[in-house]
């Protein structure tokens, strides 16, 4: 990927004096926000739209499901969210095999908005951890079919490298299990993945609050994808605002380059010039 090497953890790009970050570039598209939001589990559609706007995101994920024929009027999310306002990233959530995920991705593409997909193949119901073999298999098929694949995976470096080799436009390791809100459990592995991949690394799942988003971005990753933390907060709009700031704060802190940790105090005021 062009222009992305500048943001690797080993050579942090200097934040301009204005404090404005460079845009996030994925699969040839540019995004000013490094936050991607899911659209599930909100108390109501109006709150969802207000929260999404408050977050500053430009990309939202959606799921493919059967139309409920027992309801008089269909409840497509597109009645509430305009594809002109937000870039739609369809997911394959709920799929447990590569074949199923490919089927869902094709249906999503047939909706006619774009050829992007958030690939997710789950391997275990309790943890919702990904089946990395099935994810890789599906990624290869979808890339071959011309999809731009953003692949949800665990924090395993080898899988991340294979997904990049398979042609994914972004690799998305988890911070912790989907919907757990446990935050970033393995910053070392996330940093390692970021330092070894050329494609953007988006941490997907597990962020519970703004400090998690901030800490995640401080690892040098390119962005964060979240849903539950905002949707189930007592005040989703306020949490979305907090996440927006958390992501920006973490990104700028990473670019700024933090001071080294010392296990001893160092005075901030001059030691010379004290009264005799």
């Amino acid at each position: 990927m062009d222009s992305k090497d500048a943001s690797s953890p080993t050579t942090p790009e200097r934040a301009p004096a204005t404090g404005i970050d460079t845009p996030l570039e994925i699969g040839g598209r540019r995004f000013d926000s490094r936050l991607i939001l899911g659209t599930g589990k909100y108390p109501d559609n109006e709150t969802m739209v207000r929260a999404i706007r408050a977050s500053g995101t430009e990309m939202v994920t959606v799921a493919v499901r059967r139309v409920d024929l027992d309801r008089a009027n269909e409840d497509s999310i597109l009645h509430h969210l305009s594809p002109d306002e937000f870039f739609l990233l369809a997911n394959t959530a709920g799929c447990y095999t590569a074949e199923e995920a490919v089927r869902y991705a094709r249906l999503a593409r047939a909706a006619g908005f774009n050829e992007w997909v958030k690939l997710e193949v789950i391997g275990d119901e309790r943890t919702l951890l990904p089946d990395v073999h099935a994810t890789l298999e599906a990624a290869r098929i979808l890339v071959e079919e011309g999809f731009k694949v953003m692949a949800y995976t665990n924090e395993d470096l080898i899988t991340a490298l294979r997904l990049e080799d398979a042609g994914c436009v972004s690799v998305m390791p988890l911070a912790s299990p989907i919907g757990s809100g446990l935050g970033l459990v393995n910053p070392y592995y996330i940093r390692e993945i970021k330092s070894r991949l050329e494609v953007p690394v988006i941490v997907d799942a597990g962020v519970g609050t703004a400090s998690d988003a901030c800490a995640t971005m401080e690892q040098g990753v390119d962005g964060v994808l979240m849903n539950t933390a905002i949707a189930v907060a007592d005040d989703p709009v306020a949490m979305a605002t907090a996440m927006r700031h958390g992501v920006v704060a973490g990104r700028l802190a990473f670019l700024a380059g933090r001071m080294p940790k010392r296990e001893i105090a160092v005075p901030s005021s001059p030691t010379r010039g004290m009264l005799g």
Partner: protein
Amino acid sequence: MAEGTGGRPPEEMGGPPERDSLRIIVNGKEREVARGTTVAGLLDELGLAPGMVVVEHNRAILERARLGEVPLAEGDRLELVHFVGGG
């Protein structure tokens, strides 16, 4: 795939149609439609705007432009999907 167990209607064999209606499976539920109904006709019956749904007809995705051209047959399986909230 273990699909296509519904069989083809008898008129393909040259005999007269048995009924005026067809049984199809839409989103996992059996439904009767008039013989000759197209996929577009079915969407209309269901009150669904073609632009808001994607149709999978016997496991093959149907392009929107072809919805009006494809007649339904006995035992057809349709999946009508759309985008909902998700993470």
